[in-house]
């Protein structure tokens, strides 16, 4: 008896009880479909987030005030005010950091913008003219403010498309006035609508010179971040070291674990976010995998019923020459077919659901989402379902093979 004959015999066995066979594999189908759906959406979400991070540019390094949140809890409020003008000046010195090409201080916070009686909640950024280049923000109307306006703390603002739509819905906003946190500004640029990028939604943002923001809005001398650009991707690691050394010297920090700043580049951020989404995805997939166990027990249950029902068939097969081994393999293969079919159907259904979900995410939420077929999850899923069939089919198949032919033929 070769594999094809076993395959045929097992197939006939399943076909004879088609409806039951289909119901039996539902558990496996649901389990595999959930795994595919979860992993596909997880990968899609990861891509979405990583694309955002890539919006930063690969040469960008972000220095944040305050120590690493994962570090020892030894810091006070004062650490949030660790980045000042002298840090910017020091980083601009070629002798401190030879590969740094741009240094931009950044202050930010939430605020309210008003035009007449209309008001709108915005994200307010205080930056330099370098903001335009680092975050690829090119106004569709007007232009970004210049270095001169930063130096002179000018009352100029570049607004996001949504801010413009809310406050100047049907008219030109360029050159018009806008009141931000009670201070009057002139709109010099309007940004195109681009959704969220680099984890910031610039559509709802207003960007003003950091000097203006410090002096008239926030009333501080500190920066939330210093954004630095290295002259090439290859020098990022060098620049990160230079930044750390420069700031530590300046802040008189000897123990690196007591840093009052954090330095991150796009690669770091990508890695961190990938780990978070990976852990989430695999955790959910593991939960879904439990249903495979439940499905397997269902298969065992049904196979046992089937073995009892088909006692006569087993007896007949033995009477015409089948060995115990022949019967064992036939019933084991039936179980594996069931679960394998369940696995494949599960992959198909999971893929279909993922496609529908991707479509909805794009249509309803407007995310720049890409559907991802999780090849490894599909292959592992189908393989695992076959193994589930082997494991849970073994006991019923052994029961079948042990039946004595005469008891089997006598069975009514």
């Amino acid at each position: 008896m070769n594999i094809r004959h076993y395959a045929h015999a097992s197939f006939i066995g399943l076909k004879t009880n088609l409806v039951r066979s289909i119901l039996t594999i539902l558990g496996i189908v649901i389990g595999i479909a959930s795994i595919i759906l979860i992993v596909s959406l997880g990968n899609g979400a990861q891509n979405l987030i990583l694309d955002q991070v890539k919006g930063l540019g690969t040469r960008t390094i972000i220095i944040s005030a305050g120590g690493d949140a994962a570090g020892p809890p030894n810091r006070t409020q004062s650490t949030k005010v660790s980045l000042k003008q002298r840090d910017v000046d020091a980083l601009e010195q070629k002798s401190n950091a030879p590969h740094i090409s741009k240094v931009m201080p950044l202050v930010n916070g939430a605020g309210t913008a008003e035009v007449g009686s209309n008001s709108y909640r915005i994200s307010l950024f205080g930056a330099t003219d370098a903001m335009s280049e680092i975050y690829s923000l090119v106004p569709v109307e007007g232009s970004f403010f210049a270095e001169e306006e930063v130096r002179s703390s000018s009352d100029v603002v570049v607004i996001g498309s949504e801010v413009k739509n809310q406050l100047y819905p049907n008219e030109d906003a360029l050159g018009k006035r806008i009141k931000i946190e009670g201070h009057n500004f002139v709109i010099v640029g309007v940004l195109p609508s681009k959704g969220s990028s680099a984890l910031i939604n610039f559509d709802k943002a207003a960007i003003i010179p950091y000097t203006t923001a410090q002096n008239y809005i926030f009333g501080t001398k500190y920066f939330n971040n210093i954004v630095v650009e290295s002259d090439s991707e290859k020098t990022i690691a060098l620049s990160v070291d230079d930044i750390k050394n420069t700031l530590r010297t300046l802040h008189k920090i000897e123990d690196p674990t007591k840093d009052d700043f954090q330095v991150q580049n796009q690669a770091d951020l990508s890695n961190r976010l990938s780990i978070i989404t990976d852990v989430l995805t695999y955790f959910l997939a593991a939960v879904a995998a439990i249903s495979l166990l439940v499905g397997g027990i269902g298969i065992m249950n049904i196979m046992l019923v089937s073995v009892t029902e088909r006692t006569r068939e087993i007896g007949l097969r033995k009477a015409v020459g089948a060995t115990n081994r022949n019967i064992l393999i036939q019933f084991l293969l039936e179980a594996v077919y069931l679960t394998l079919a369940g696995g494949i159907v599960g992959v198909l259904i999971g893929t279909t659901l993922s496609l529908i979900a991707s479509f909805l995410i794009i249509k309803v939420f407007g995310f720049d989402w890409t559907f991802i077929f999780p090849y490894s999850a599909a292959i592992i899923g189908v393989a695992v379902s076959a193994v589930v069939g082997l494991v849970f089919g073994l006991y019923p198949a052994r029961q079948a093979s042990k039946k004595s032919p005469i008891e089997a033929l006598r069975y009514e």
Partner: protein
Amino acid sequence: MATLLQIQDLVKEYVDGDTITRALDGINFNVNKGEFVAIMGPSGSGKSTLLHMLGFLDSPTSGQYIFDGINTHELVEEDVAKLRSRKVGFVFQAFNLLAKTSVLENVKLPLLYSDIPEHEWNDRAKKAIDSVGLTHRLYHEPSELSGGEKQRVAIARALINDPEIIFADEPTGNLDSTSGKKVMSILEDLHDNKGHTIILITHETHTAEHAERIIRILDGKVEKDEKVLNKRSSTDNFLK
């Protein structure tokens, strides 16, 4: 004539808790190659148990069974399966055909467990089906066949491996008289014209009289073992 099977002091006991039931109580007889033997007895006499022993479906508690020179006592499960596959063909009262499986596939079933090369399977099966006159039913399923036709499929299945001996357990028991007659005439033809050895189990005298020899079993013992003087032929009136 050469002896095909020899049984000596065959005993079969069933143990159920403290009760021991002796179904066969020391049976002795030989069957020669080419013989047509009927085993008769009322229900509970042990005749089906005997057939199960003879057909390697069950093993005796004690006693010897020598089949074609092989002492079956010494065989392991796989050898027994091989014997069933190569040496014997069964015809059961309840037909025992696989449901939702065509006549052709049903007849081919024993080949699955044989050494016969696959390219011969279809020809063999078709020949066997032709010999029981069911060529027009090749692709029908058992549910589409009459009782008599089902039993003829079962006979074709029993013949497919070209067995040394055919065991027929009440083959007409579930059939009307016309179908039963047809089945008996096929068995008779297999013996008379093709030289097959047949052991037939029945409780009906008129069926048993198709054989050359009748062994009567009562309470697990051979009560009588005699030649049939007026062998009934299927051309006789089946129901006298």
